[in-house]
């Protein structure tokens, strides 16, 4: 299941939901706000989403991952609103019987979310200027 959250991501709860007794492995990715991007010093970030479409598209990605890879459970939550340096912006977790599928599915979900889910990043730099971030 995919979700967007205005509150701090609760990774402990998400990890618990991803656990399954049929699984021998769990792969997780946490995306954090870093203090620099494209050569500029970043002070903070704001993420904006088109919530209804973001949740639909995110859930489509999770369903596609479930079909493509031999995994048992997958969750992804993306934070929106104002985030500070070090805050968690995105969490992806996948459980599977074997590690290979879990690694691949986690990477697939993250890459697809970054390119397809309507969420946009606005950076405020330490010089006080701000701007929308283009896809790298």
């Amino acid at each position, binding site marked *: 299941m995919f979700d967007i959250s205005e509150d701090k991501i609760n990774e402990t709860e998400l990890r618990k939901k991803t656990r399954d007794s049929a699984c021998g492995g769990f792969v997780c990715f946490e*995306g954090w706000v870093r203090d620099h991007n494209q050569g500029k010093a970043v002070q903070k970030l704001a*993420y*904006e*989403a*088109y919530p*209804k*479409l973001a949740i*639909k*598209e995110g859930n489509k990605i999770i369903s596609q991952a479930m079909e493509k890879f031999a995994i048992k459970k997958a969750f992804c939550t*993306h934070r929106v609103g104002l985030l500070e340096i070090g805050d968690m*912006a*995105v969490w992806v977790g996948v459980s599977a019987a074997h590690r290979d599928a879990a690694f691949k599915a986690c990477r697939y979900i*993250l890459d697809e*979310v*970054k*390119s*397809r*889910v*309507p*969420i*946009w*990043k*606005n950076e405020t730099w330490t010089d006080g200027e701000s701007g*929308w*971030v*283009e*896809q790298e």
Partner: protein
Amino acid sequence: MKNTSKNITILFFGKLKETWKTSELKQTTQVNTIEELYIELLKHCDEEPHKASIKAAINDEFVSWDSSINDNDTIAFLPPASGG
């Protein structure tokens, strides 16, 4: 196709809010497709965005540029995603 008047809501996200200097517009329009609406909207912005990178949605579903617009539709124009 007959050009009938339609009341629509247009949403802009990300940097497109700055291009059109608003996040939401309510309009009565006679255009029939997303493409025609986009061309009409270009008259109201100073700088033409890179159209190939923009996605459109009607009523919370991604749609193609030749999709028809109906009365009371909510249409969104979305720049490339930059989440993660």
